[in-house]
């Protein structure tokens, strides 16, 4: 007996409530933007500058104790969080200390790190500093810029590619779906307050790639069916295409999600934010290729004659008869 995620022949009407779905998506995008503008993003040091120190100790993490130890150094904004993870050993107590960029120093100060490490060592004798990372304000500014450029470039590149391979209506549908996915991902990061660093940008771009992958597979079938059923209304062609590719869409999303969830649970805390972004992106991306990209395509309409193109064909048939 085969595992079947869906029956063989589905005839769902994906556009029955397409206004509602588009409305929900638009609302969620607005919500994401509002959240980002009000709550902001929990930028990591890659983007904000500053220092993070990851500590490990056999003693339980005493955040107040850590805070007292470094308070004397007068470093401004210091965040101390304890990290929990199922992959840790029982005597592995991990904390993350984040120190804001010290205003006047362009370069990273070794004295500062030494002072913090010394103070913590005095408070917790067996503490180990398993990673220390510092980014100066100069670099972090540039990193934000290049990251934004990367995302915009990626979206622009696929816009052009799909435009070349399909029609502009397809490209618009796909790109709006991408922006939808990126916006919702950034939104959830803002809402949940997960640290947003350089790796998340990589995740965003992967989401762009994945969501596109999904959209393109549906569009490819739409293109094929448009040629096959020249008289069928666009809405029915779209519905047919989505239904035909539905089983593949769910299989691929299913396998990818299985792999990602394994990584999410077992991959350790260092890449959890990154994997979370991708998992979320796969879900949102699968949704958007049907309910955003295709729904938009339906509204934008599409050129129906795929067999021949060029000005010759646009002439009316009387002209043909005369000749």
């Amino acid at each position: 007996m085969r595992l079947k995620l869906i029956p063989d022949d589905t005839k769902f009407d994906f556009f029955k409530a397409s206004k509602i779905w588009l409305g929900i998506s638009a609302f969620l995008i607005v919500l994401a933007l509002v959240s980002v503008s009000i709550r902001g993003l929990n930028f990591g040091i890659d983007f904000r500058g500053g220092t993070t120190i990851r500590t490990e100790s056999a003693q339980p993490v005493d955040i107040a104790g850590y805070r007292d130890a470094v308070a004397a150094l007068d470093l401004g904004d210091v965040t101390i969080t304890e990290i929990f993870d199922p992959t840790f050993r029982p005597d592995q107590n991990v904390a993350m200390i984040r120190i804001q960029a010290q205003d006047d120093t362009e370069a990273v100060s070794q004295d500062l790190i030494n002072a913090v490490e010394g103070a913590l060592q005095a408070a917790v004798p067996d503490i180990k500093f398993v990673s220390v990372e510092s980014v100066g304000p100069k670099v972090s500014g540039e990193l934000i810029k290049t990251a934004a450029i990367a995302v915009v470039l990626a979206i622009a590149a696929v816009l052009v590619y799909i435009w070349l391979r399909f029609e502009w209506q397809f490209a618009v549908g796909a790109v709006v779906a991408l922006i939808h996915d990126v916006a919702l991902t950034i939104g959830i990061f803002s809402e949940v307050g997960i640290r947003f660093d350089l790796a998340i940008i990589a995740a965003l771009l992967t989401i762009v790639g994945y969501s596109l992958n999904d959209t393109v597979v549906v569009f490819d079938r739409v293109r094929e069916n448009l040629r096959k059923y020249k008289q069928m209304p666009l809405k029915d062609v779209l519905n047919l295409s989505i239904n035909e590719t539905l089983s593949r869409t769910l299989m691929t999303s299913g396998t990818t999600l299985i792999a990602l969830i394994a990584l999410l649970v077992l991959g350790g805390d260092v890449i959890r934010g990154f994997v979370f972004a991708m998992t979320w992106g796969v879900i949102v991306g699968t949704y958007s290729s049907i309910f955003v990209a295709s729904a938009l395509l339906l509204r934008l309409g599409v050129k129906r004659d795929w067999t021949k193109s060029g000005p010759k064909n646009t002439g009316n048939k009387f002209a043909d008869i005369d000749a």
Partner: protein
Amino acid sequence: MLQIELWKKVAIWLVVVAGLLLALPNAFYNRVETYNDSVAATGEGEGWPSFLPSNLVNLGLDLRGGAHLLAEVRVQDVYATRMQSMWPEIRDRLRDARAEVGTIRLQDSSDPSVLQIRIGEAGGVDRAVQLIEELARPVTSLTGAGATDITVSAQGDVITVQLSEAEKLATDDRTVRQSLEIIRRRIDEVGTREPTIQRQGTDRILIQVPGVGSAAELKDIIGTTAQLTFQPVISRTSSADTAPGAGNEVLPSLDEQGVYYVLETAPVVSGEELVDAQPSFDQNGRPAVSFRFNTSGARKFGDYTANNIGNPFAIVLDGEVISAPVIQSHIPGGSGIITGNFSVEESTNLAVLLRAGALPAGLDFLEERTIGPELGADSIEAGKIATTVAFIAVLVFMVASYGLFGIFANIALMANVVLIFGLLSLLGATLTLPGIAGIVLTIGMAVDANVLVFERIREELKTAKGPARAIQLGYEKALSAIIDANITTFITAVILYAVGSGPVRGFAITLGLGILTSVFTAIYLTRLLIVIWFQRRRPKTLEV
């Protein structure tokens, strides 16, 4: 109908076997690493057959632990040195034309890379400018062809001399390249394995050293300029504000608090003329550094010591006086010993720095990261478990969904992972933690191409005439979707690689390679397996 030409079959199997051989060393990582080290050191090694490939996937700093530094070279430092060294030349030249230009005086300038000269006869200013311009040399760079290295301008009786923009660009480039070379020499002297030292942008240098305890230790080695000079001592004082007088400077003592020396600015000999420096011990058994000059340095040093017996001279490192011994006798051989309050470690480091040479300019550290090896090991462990679980789950899922064809897809999937590792080893690419995530994602996505084909075959079975035709049509019709979908993802991987750095770049590499290998395995390998099976069995019906 379902024919694959023989040469294609052979080529497909060859690629898979080559991937397997290239990936094999990674299964014995430690053993092969030891083998490679001993080959590098002695030319031969044990524990690994020499006919097998021995390239390994580089583990990124986040997996192996190590130090990462991004340094910016203070290229402007060099402008000042250049202009200061020009002053004597300009002075002598103007002095010769004293009748026309009058007295010559160097103005105090807030910017040391600009010389401001006031002359006595305002009427002779054009002549003075002309004389100085004759000192200009053509810029030695491709872009600066035709330009000269200084610009001279006059305002009233004050003449301003500074480096031209073209010369500044050429100097910047030279400075960064020299710094890169010296950093590389210093790190090689310490003998760590596989450091990455790269230029980034116009004036930055990225240094990654696996295994070094911390970025702080790395900074000790590369952060100091290590400009060593031997300068005559005028006097010793206790105030930094002592007026040094023309041609002299006041420098603090390295380890005596509140002690300052007034020194002649022009050094007798400098570190550039050292040919060797070794850590050693003085007569009292304290750590010291012994050094030897080249011939010209030895002669200058010998002449100076012969003429100044009984006078002190200062050994100055990066603007601080290490020690100021009194010259006891003529030192002819050009070798000597530097004593100071060193620990053994400090004297060893100093010797390394002196041997490798001084940095032409100071470094600012913009970014530094230290990853402990334990954290890296934990990450690898977690990554291994997660990858294995993901892999098995996907395998089971595929067999449950597609039966026999699922098994074919799984064989292709395993070949896919092997090929990724083979390619990573071949390219010497770096595997980072996000890179592992990239592989896991590829496992998930690699089945996509197979799924596309299988679903298509299922559809074609409903309409087409017979299983062979369905398989063929399935592959033909799924191809455009596979290509379009993968090219778009590949585009994002390329952009990530171009724009990203460090771990992100590692992710882009595995994602990009993963797309290539997954398309290959899905289009060629799975198809080959299906064709072989089909030709053996000749089934009348097909169950996908």
